[in-house]
């Protein structure tokens, strides 16, 4: 893209094509011969990482769309069926869901890098603005993608975000109705979000092409912030930048794979494993972590319209950055004041992210307002001011000089990486602690055989748990995503196909219509799902004093509790993600005959230590000796509770063992690849230094 290429293929067939469509010349001049500054550091590999992530998201997204059903009644179930039944469906979904977080993680680093090194300054203004457009498109795409699983957070996230537009004077209500395609968020909303979620990534890809084009016209910025002058300042893109980028991508993949295979739900919200319910709003609506800073700005402003304007303004202000910061020196390396304020700005952003996840009350609101002010002050007051009063240090004469002057100094890089990781952790932890204060005691952590990177289910516990479910829980709770055939699948409770068949035939399943047009009952088959105890929600409520006994298929993933600081950070490394099972086990044992003095127990409720709010409608379900075990395990409530939770954990994630096994293989492979790429890169660059 930088002028006509002198590239000429030697093969006559290629020559023939090249004369008519010079595509090979274009590729050669853009990605092979293209001169790239020789002093780029690893922060510059995030461009390649982002391109890679866009490819990953489009590829996995197109595949998921092959199996997904965009209908309000079927979307949640279809996502579960992808995870349970489609070959490697769990892998594809995990990649796509955590891929979204990784994409934003990388884009934030990319943006902060541009901010620090002044990559938006003349002549790269258009390049920067295209980047802001890509970021806006990413936010829209990410939001609409989050709606598609149609869980509680999907539904209420869609409601809250679309309602932002109701702040528009005069036309607000009409705009929102237009967005919804109805009087509330519903099936038409889901359908159009699916359509747009499929469309926008390709729009992003198009703008990325423009972004790269603009980049190749202006040339890359570099840590020194001086333009290349002679040939000594640059190296050809291939192999130098290519190898470095590949090494960067490989390192990033290690980080990514940690989430895919070991922490797939760490960045998600347990609430989204509950199907969308238009009648109940979750206690804490928290957006995904990557929107939190803007969410905090929205909530800091006590006026609806002003809040919405501030939120969008916080993003749009980035587009004006090239003119707000008129300092001639690009790189903050040579701007002693700008450098310090940059890091303060990073802290402000992280602080806003943390506050975005906190309940909007008390001190959080006040700090939120201060940080919102500081956010805007950085752009509107500080940067214009600095450009006038700051005395920058002299910049190097050329990039080659900068390379020569470099004396090792990798330390800032390392500390920056640590800072970035801590920041990410803090944001996630912020989301986590929002779930904390819900008025239930923290359940004690249990030892589970399935926890950790090598965790496996305990077949005995699962078989006993199935018995407890069948004899006790099943009278009120369904297990509608689990089929009898699953009982004989690898990674499951370890029954044979014949045993699963026999188990299924004990159930009566409704089928039909037959040739006479009538429904009839027949014995269950392996392909059938566990029948639910009630025909519909109304019947379930009528039989249970107004309460709806939730389906247990996903209960161990749909329940969680806040881990608090610093546990959530430690959890990332220990791979602790058993909040759900810990809670379910504790709940089953948490009944007290008498509520503590002063606690007002409503009629028809029971006191449970671990239930949020303590008043639960479910009577104490388990008693000692209630279920007979054949294998000599103690017939106690504690044992029942642990066994049935163990079984339900498998029911919620039947491919957990496969996930962890494949994870180990992928990690061995990725470490090998990364080491090889490191040495290859070193070898390639040995000539350049």
């Amino acid at each position, binding site marked *: 893209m930088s002028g006509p290429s002198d590239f000429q293929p030697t093969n006559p067939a290629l020559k023939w094509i090249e004369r008519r469509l010079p595509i090979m010349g274009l590729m050669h001049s853009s990605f092979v011969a293209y001169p790239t500054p020789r002093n780029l550091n690893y922060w510059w590999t995030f461009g390649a990482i982002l391109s890679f992530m866009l490819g990953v998201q489009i*590829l996995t997204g197109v*595949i998921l769309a*092959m*199996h997904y059903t965009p209908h309000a009644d079927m979307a949640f179930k279809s996502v579960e*069926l992808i995870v*349970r*039944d*489609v*070959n*490697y*469906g769990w*892998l*594809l979904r995990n990649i796509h869901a955590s891929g979204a977080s990784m994409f934003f993680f990388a884009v934030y680093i990319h943006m902060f890098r541009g901010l620090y090194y002044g990559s938006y300054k003349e002549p790269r203004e258009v390049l920067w603005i295209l980047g802001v457009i890509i970021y806006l498109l990413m936010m829209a795409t990410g939001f609409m993608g989050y709606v598609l699983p149609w869980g509680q957070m999907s539904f209420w996230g869609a409601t809250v975000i679309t309602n932002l537009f109701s702040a528009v004077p005069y036309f607000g209500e009409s705009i929102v109705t237009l967005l919804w395609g109805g009087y509330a968020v519903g099936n038409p909303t889901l359908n159009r979000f699916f359509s747009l979620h499929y469309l926008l990534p390709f729009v992003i890809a198009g703008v990325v092409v423009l972004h790269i084009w603009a980049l190749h016209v202006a040339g890359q910025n570099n840590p020194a912030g001086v333009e290349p002058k002679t040939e000594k300042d640059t190296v050809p893109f291939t192999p130098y930048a290519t190898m470095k980028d590949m090494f960067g991508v490989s390192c990033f993949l290690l980080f990514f794979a940690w989430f895919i295979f070991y922490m797939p739900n760490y960045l998600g919200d347990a609430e989204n494993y509950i199907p969308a319910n238009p009648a109940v709003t979750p206690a804490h609506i928290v957006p995904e972590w990557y929107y939190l800073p803007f969410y905090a700005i929205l909530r800091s402003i006590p006026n609806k319209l002003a809040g919405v304007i501030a939120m969008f303004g916080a993003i749009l202000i980035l587009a004006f950055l090239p003119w707000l910061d008129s300092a001639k020196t690009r790189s903050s390396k040579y701007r002693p004041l700008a450098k310090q304020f940059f890091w303060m700005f990073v802290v402000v952003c992280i602080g806003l992210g943390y506050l975005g996840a906190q309940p909007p009350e008390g001190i959080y609101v006040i700090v939120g307002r201060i940080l919102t002010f500081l956010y805007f002050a950085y752009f509107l007051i500080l940067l214009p001011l600095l450009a006038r009063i700051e005395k920058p240090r002299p910049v190097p004469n050329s990039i080659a000089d900068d390379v020569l002057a470099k004396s090792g100094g990798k330390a800032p890089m390392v500390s920056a990486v640590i800072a970035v990781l801590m920041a990410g952790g803090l944001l996630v932890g912020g989301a986590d602690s929002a779930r904390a204060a819900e008025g239930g005691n923290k359940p004690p952590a249990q030892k589970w055989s399935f926890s950790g990177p090598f965790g496996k289910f305990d077949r005995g516990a699962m078989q006993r748990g199935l018995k407890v479910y069948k004899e006790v829980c099943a009278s009120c709770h369904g297990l509608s995503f689990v*089929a009898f*055939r699953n009982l004989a*699948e690898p990674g499951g409770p370890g029954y044979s196909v014949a045993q699963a068949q026999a188990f299924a035939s004990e159930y009566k399943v409704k089928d039909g219509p037959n*040739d006479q047009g009538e429904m009839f009952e027949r014995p269950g*088959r*392996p*392909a059938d799902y566990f029948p639910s105890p009630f025909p519909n929600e109304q019947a379930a409520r009528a039989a249970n004093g107004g309460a709806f006994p939730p389906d247990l298929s996903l209960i161990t993933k749909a329940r969680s509790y806040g881990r608090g600081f610093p546990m959530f950070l430690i959890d990332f490394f220990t791979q602790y993600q058993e909040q759900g099972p810990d809670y379910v086990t504790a709940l089953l044992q948490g009944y007290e005959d008498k509520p503590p003095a002063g606690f007002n127990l409503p009629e028809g409720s029971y006191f449970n230590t671990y239930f949020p709010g303590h008043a639960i409608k479910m009577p104490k379900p388990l008693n000692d000796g209630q279920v007979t075990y054949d294998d000599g395990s103690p017939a106690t409530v504690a044992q029942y509770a642990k066994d049935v939770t163990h079984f339900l954990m498998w029911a919620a994630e039947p491919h957990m063992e496969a996930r962890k096994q494949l994870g180990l293989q992928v990690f061995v*492979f990725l470490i*090998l*690849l990364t080491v*090889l*790429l490191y*040495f*290859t890169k070193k*070898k390639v660059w*040995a*000539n350049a230094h």
Partner: protein
Amino acid sequence: MTTASSADHPTRRDFLYVATGAVAAVGAAATVWPLVSQMNPDASTVAAGAPIEVDLTPIAEGQDIKVFWRGKPIYISHRTKKQIEEARKVPVSSLPDPQSDEQRVKPGHDQWLVVVGICTHLGCIPIAHEGAYDGFFCPCHGSVYDTSGRIRQGPAPTNLPVPPYTFVSDTKIQIG
């Protein structure tokens, strides 16, 4: 400098590049596997393709019914004496896809013809009791099958396939 160092250790340098390239290629190939494998029928579809049982009592002589197994229509014909005779009269060697009628039915149950009702030409569904041979006629491109479901005329290359089935009793079959 560049040429000197690579000339000194040409094999070591090449080995590193080849090894890196090979490992990356293996990774790319392994990544393709799940991306393609997901297109195969999922576990619920496979489970739904389990064998089915069909009661033959309601089917009178000369009648046929269509049932679905694995999403495919299966014709079950209760053939008349005349139809069976027609099918057995024709010399096998004269057929485009030579197969005797005995090979296509279960011994002792000669009157029951069970075939997959999908034309072997391009997948349309042939109409029963039509065509010159009193068997099946495919309206799409004019393939004609006889009372044993064998191709007699038209573009279809092979006979209508016989699905796997067994007689559970004299009046009940299990397909699959």
